[in-house]
């Protein structure tokens, strides 16, 4: 029977290990998108849906720019790059406009040109300024270079159509020009050629990322080796995600390895035997395998943050083993069963308290956090089970006499604390620390700006900036969504919005925007334009102008043109408009209006006021708001966890005693942000709040081991707590060096919090 339980448990762990190995070998999906940590439950459903479509469209795109002093060389290099990527089926280039498409697109627009007016021409017509209209036409007609092709002036002598197209181009703030089917720009003596590649795989899929990045990097290197004058720039979510995965992998490897080495060094050094080390590794492995198996079973993808956290869990699950072996320190022999019996109450209470805490955390509707909570809770239960069932069977040694000096040091510290801090003083001190801490912590300013919490590679950022600056179009995270029951309703709403955006351009708040209605006005607007044109063509000034040119009739610009429809343009090669058409279902049409050169958000918010079908989407501030909400919620959950743990402990202790035990880690929790934010200047973020959750769990363990220990055993508890704290701080202290901001914030919080929890843990001791 005594062997049945450990063998049964080890069999379970072996099965779990087998399952993990199979899943890892078959390749599991690693989620690098930080936003996947967060829930999708804010705002209107259609905005969420449309935003997701937009994010997907943007995410599945890679923009490539190749520069060279010769256009042909730049173009050839770009084509080679695209050819290689397409040949490996990693992407499909966004269709370049063929001659037939341009012809069809142009013919369609021209056929409806009487309804298409530039903003300024429309304004001139609305204010009855035919004279100025004619003046502008003359200016174009007499310019040294006529900017229209042969045979078109007699069709449009007022140059309304060419001004309409030029206006559209000006509004969009696009700096590139069209050459041989590609967007190009001559800048600083170089020709830059741009192409967009639509990915055939998921940009956040690790395997796809690796294949793409490898091929792209190899091809780029080959091209540059062949011609050092080439400049190859690229941007897209895939590159950022790939960089984040690589960064996470490096962090995870570093933190995991150093943490493991530190724990090995500590255990071998302090216990003078390999046995505690091997059994600790067994409990750690048990925790990791169990946790990993369960999240692989429950979740399709493992979030990067959960994986990094997994490296940190080593520092926590080793505590149980440390406490177990610390009971055997000293010259007197202690049997494995005696050691287990001494630590079992605190071990069990600590484990249950932690599970209560993580269960509270799992209530937060964050997919990534649920993973962390499940991983941690299951990992701790498995580590606990390994210690409880396996250690007495595998540990045969009865004494580890090599750490007497440290034990003596712990004894002195324990004596010192109890000489100076009596029972009442401990209560008063805890009340002051918790009360004062809470009061001061309320004055701290949190920082939930998502931009501060994502570490972006400087090289990638530079390339993105260069592409934006060359193209003139921001890949801004701010855009408008316009919805309606029909295409016509959406176009009308868009026109209301864009008239306000025109004002913002004049005020310098934005440099431009892109909308469907600037190219395809609503039928209502086209009818108005036709009426305006009809009226002005009948005016004396226009009539005189036509006569001075010897023209009696004007064919193309006549009001008999057919109105232009969006679907006609799409069929006629208006491919670039498809990016702005978010949804075109019956009863729900959604268009996007993109923005360039946004200075401030406030004027954009104001531009949407009163327009019911218009919604400003600011992805960054939207997620920052979500982070803020959930930081607040995490703090609330932390308080709930404190209450629940107190209730649980009140079942074993008197309520006041339970309150003292709970107050020790609570004091550490409230004092930590005062140190990290107040003294070290670290911003208090959602991830800091998550770090506090772990401080509470470990702090409860420290307090419980101290509280459960009879007076002679207290130095042993203090020694074990110190050992646990050092191993945890080594693991999480390294996390504070992580380049991933979230991991760094988490690490620094734990580094400070665990130190405080260790220092305060003697206050939880039972006094005479």
């Amino acid at each position, binding site marked *: 029977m005594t062997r049945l339980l450990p063998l049964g448990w080890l069999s379970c762990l072996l099965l779990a290990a087998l399952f993990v190995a199979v899943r890892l070998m078959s390749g599991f999906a690693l989620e690098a998108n930080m936003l996947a940590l967060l829930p999708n439950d804010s705002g209107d459903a259609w905005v969420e849906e449309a935003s997701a479509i937009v994010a997907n469209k943007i995410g599945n795109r890679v923009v490539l720019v190749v520069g060279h002093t010769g256009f042909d060389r730049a173009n050839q290099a770009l084509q080679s790059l695209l050819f290689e990527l397409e040949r490996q089926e990693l992407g499909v280039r966004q269709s370049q406009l063929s001659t037939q498409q341009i012809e069809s697109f142009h013919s369609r627009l021209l056929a409806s040109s009487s309804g298409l007016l530039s903003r300024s021409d429309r304004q001139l017509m609305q204010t009855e300024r035919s004279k100025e209209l004619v003046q502008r036409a003359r200016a174009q*007609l007499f310019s040294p270079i006529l900017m229209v*092709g042969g045979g078109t002036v007699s069709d449009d002598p007022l140059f309304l159509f060419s001004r309409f197209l030029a206006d559209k*181009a*000006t509004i969009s703030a696009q700096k590139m020009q069209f050459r041989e089917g590609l967007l190009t720009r001559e800048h600083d003596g170089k020709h830059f050629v741009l192409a967009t590649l639509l990915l055939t795989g998921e940009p956040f899929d690790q395997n796809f990322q690796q294949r793409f990045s490898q091929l792209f990097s190899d091809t780029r290197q080959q091209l540059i080796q062949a011609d050092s004058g080439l400049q190859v720039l690229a941007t897209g979510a895939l590159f950022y995600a790939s960089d984040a995965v690589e960064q996470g992998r490096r962090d995870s490897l570093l933190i995991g390895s150093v943490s493991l080495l530190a724990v090995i060094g500590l255990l071998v050094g302090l216990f003078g035997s390999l046995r505690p080390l091997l059994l600790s590794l067994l409990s750690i492995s048990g925790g990791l395998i169990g946790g990993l198996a369960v999240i692989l079973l429950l979740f399709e993808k493992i979030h990067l943050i959960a994986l990094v956290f997994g490296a940190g869990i080593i520092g926590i699950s080793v505590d149980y083993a440390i406490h177990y072996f610390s009971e055997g320190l000293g010259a007197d022999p202690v049997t494995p069963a005696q050691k287990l019996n001494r630590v079992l109450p605190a071990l069990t209470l600590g484990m249950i308290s932690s599970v209560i805490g993580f269960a509270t955390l799992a209530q937060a509707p964050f997919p990534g956090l649920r993973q962390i909570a499940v991983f941690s809770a299951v990992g701790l239960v498995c580590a606990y089970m390994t210690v409880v069932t396996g250690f007495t069977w595998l540990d045969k040694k009865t004494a580890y006499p090599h750490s007497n000096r440290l034990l003596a040091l712990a004894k002195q510290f324990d004596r010192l604390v109890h000489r100076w801090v009596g029972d009442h003083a401990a209560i008063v001190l805890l009340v002051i620390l918790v009360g004062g801490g809470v009061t001061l912590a309320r004055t701290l300013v949190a920082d939930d700006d998502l931009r501060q919490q994502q570490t972006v590679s400087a090289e990638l950022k530079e390339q993105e900036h260069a592409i934006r600056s060359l193209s003139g179009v921001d890949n801004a995270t701010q855009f408008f969504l316009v919805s309606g029951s029909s295409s016509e309703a959406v176009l009308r709403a868009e026109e209301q919005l864009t008239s306000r955006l025109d004002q913002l351009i004049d005020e310098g708040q934005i440099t431009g925007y892109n909308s469907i209605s600037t190219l395809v006005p609503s039928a209502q607007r086209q009818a108005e334009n036709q009426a305006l044109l009809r009226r002005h063509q009948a005016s004396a000034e226009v009539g005189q102008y036509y006569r001075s040119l010897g023209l009696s009739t004007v064919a193309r610009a006549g009001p008999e043109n057919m109105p232009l429809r969006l679907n006609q343009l799409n069929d006629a090669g208006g491919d670039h408009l498809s990016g702005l058409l978010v949804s075109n279902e019956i009863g729900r049409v959604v268009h996007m209006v993109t923005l360039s050169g946004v200075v401030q958000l406030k004027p954009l918010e104001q531009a949407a006021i009163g327009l019911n079908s218009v919604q400003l989407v600011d992805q960054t501030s939207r997620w920052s708001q979500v982070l803020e909400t959930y930081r607040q919620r995490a703090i609330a959950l932390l308080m709930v966890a404190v209450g629940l743990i107190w209730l649980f402990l009140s079942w074993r202790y008197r309520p006041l005693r339970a309150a003292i035990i709970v107050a020790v880690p609570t004091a550490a929790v409230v004092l930590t942000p005062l140190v990290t934010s107040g003294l070290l200047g670290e911003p208090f973020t959602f991830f800091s709040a998550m770090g506090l959750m772990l401080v509470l769990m470990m702090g409860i363990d420290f307090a419980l081991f101290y509280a459960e220990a009879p007076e002679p055993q207290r130095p042993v508890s203090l020694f074990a707590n110190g050992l646990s704290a050092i191993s945890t701080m080594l693991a999480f202290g390294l996390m504070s060096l992580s380049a991933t901001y979230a991991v760094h914030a988490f690490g620094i919080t734990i580094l400070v919090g665990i130190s405080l929890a260790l220092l305060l843990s003697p206050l939880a001791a039972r006094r005479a």
Partner: protein
Amino acid sequence: MVRRLAQFCMVFFSLFGGVVTAADLSPASVEQNLFGQFKQLRYLTGFDQPISSSGRFRVGADQNLIWHTLLPFENHLQISSSGITQRIAGEQVMQLAASKLPAVKLFGDLLRISLAQEWQQLEQQFGIQPRFDGQNWAFEIDSEQLTSRFGSGLPLEKIAMQGGQFVDKLILQRGQGDYDIITFEYQTQLPGLSDPLTASPDRPAVVDPQP
């Protein structure tokens, strides 16, 4: 049809012009500037008569070109390496980046190359050399050469220039029977920026346009 499409491309895509700032159009330096008069005849399909205009121009040592149409009405155009600005009756009606208007930039470049007789640059850019007849020179840039240099976006099919000490004539052909003939007269090279024609009583202020 291809040219027609090219025109569309030119207008629709090439005019994706960033707006230049006033600072880009910095004042000219006081070196050799060329002043003169022009007469432009624009032949357009569907029009019985050519569209005629005339005025003054200045090609500055600072690379700026001022094209000041006076008849049949005033129209002031300034082309610099960075931008093009148009004013009617003193009021600015257009301001665009010149790099987005390759045809306009080409116009200015050709005038400068021809006036400075930097034929090496002409060869570098278009792979052609002028024909010489004594002091006179002439060259043509055909559709193929234009396309290889600028792609298919230019609204031009052929350019022909001829001159001697200065530029005498420029022919711009746009296809579909449309073309311009610009003739240059009364050209003077001076270091200052003042147009001598405005102050000279023995020369006409402007050339009368052909009716």
